[in-house]
């Protein structure tokens, strides 16, 4: 036993002695990827969703045949500009901490008479979720450039933050992964993709600040709920329920950590 430990230690030291050539390789690849990202930055297809979302926002729909124009996203009924930069937050009428998508479900229910369960159950990119995604693109674009400013003053907000922090480190599944497996250290990569350290302000701003985003690899606009969903899929967890408190808590944790950063949504991601 003791011998194994010593050996392990010795190997650990050896492995830290990176061959110089390999670091150069990595640096070049990273620079080239940066160039690639720069080249595709102009012309973000999110704009196509944003345009569709604006139409849906102003179009009467649902059993009550009403628009979403009076939706209160936290800054008062009908105020969209800047609203996404301050979410998630506590809402008195629902007595809950809500992220953008959860709040939009509330508005669709109250104003339009739509059943939120249909939204929860719908697969991403289809049916009612397709509408949700476009509306999200529209709403977040109206916070582009704003400072992320999320409060934990309300006890429920504070509680959500603490629950989210704990959830962030919660390991499970056949690969023992948690969010922290990939997102709790600076300067790490998975394949060629940089992994923001979401436990720090800088890292959280890079993560939270750039989602929702158009995802190049799937050719789809992904909301934050879908981003979290796919993280859990890759963590080999069961399926996180759309709009669940778990997802509110994680969002609260990331968003609060990101405070002071800039809203860069909709982003353009691999």
């Amino acid at each position, binding site marked *: 036993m003791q011998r194994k430990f010593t050996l392990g230690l010795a190997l650990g030291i050896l492995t830290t002695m990176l061959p110089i050539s390999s670091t150069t390789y990595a640096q070049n690849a990273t620079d*080239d990827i940066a160039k690639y990202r720069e080249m595709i930055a102009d012309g973000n297809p999110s704009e196509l969703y944003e345009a569709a979302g604006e139409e849906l926002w102003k179009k009467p729909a649902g059993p009550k045949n009403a628009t979403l124009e009076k939706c209160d996203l936290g800054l008062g009924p009908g105020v969209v500009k800047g609203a996404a930069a301050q979410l998630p937050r506590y809402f008195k009428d629902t007595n809950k901490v809500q992220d953008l998508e959860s709040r939009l479900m509330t508005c669709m229910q109250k104003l339009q008479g739509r059943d939120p369960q249909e939204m929860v159950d719908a697969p991403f990119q289809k049916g009612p979720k397709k509408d949700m995604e476009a509306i999200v693109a529209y709403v977040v674009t109206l916070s582009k450039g704003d400072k992320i400013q999320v409060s934990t003053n309300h006890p429920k907000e504070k509680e959500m933050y603490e629950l989210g922090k704990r959830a962030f480190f919660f390991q499970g599944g056949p690969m023992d992964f948690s969010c922290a497996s990939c997102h709790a250290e600076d300067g790490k990569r998975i394949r060629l993709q940089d992994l923001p350290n979401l436990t720090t302000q800088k890292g959280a701003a890079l993560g939270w600040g750039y989602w929702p985003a158009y995802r190049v690899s799937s050719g789809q606009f992904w909301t934050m709920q879908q981003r979290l969903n796919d993280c859990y899929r*890759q963590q080999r967890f069961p399926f996180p329920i759309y709009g669940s408190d778990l997802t509110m808590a994680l969002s609260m944790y990331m968003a609060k950590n990101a405070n002071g950063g800039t809203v860069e949504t909709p982003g353009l991601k691999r």
Partner: protein
Amino acid sequence: MNQQRRSLLKYSAIFGLMASAGLISEAQAQEWNKAAFEGKSLDDVFKILGAGSPDKSAAVTLNAPDIAENGAVVPVGITTTLKAEQMAILVEKNPSTLAAQFFIPAGTEPFVTTRIKMGQTSNVYGLVKADGKWSMAVKEIKVTLGGCGG
């Protein structure tokens, strides 16, 4: 395959209709080059475009990254100092070699950028036809695996 052919046929018919309705120009409707887009090799496409074996030319620039983070979206642009009338983007290792082609009327700059899909690392060719003569630029673009799904 059959279904694909049928839809292509149907599409040609509709194209004709659009042309007669003035929605697109007559020239364009006649020119959609089915044979070129079905070409499976560089030589096939060169032949169908009537490009022979184009010379590499410093007058043609291919704007593209060395590495694409994802093969689904690879930005590719062609610019030239020549008086281009036609431009084409070819990907050597794609199932069909020709990705896109453009017709440049007088008054339009010899510059076009679009985004293409690449199945794997490959040479990409930017072809320019000017004064009836074809020339080209070549660049290898590496397509990498990414993310945790690898």
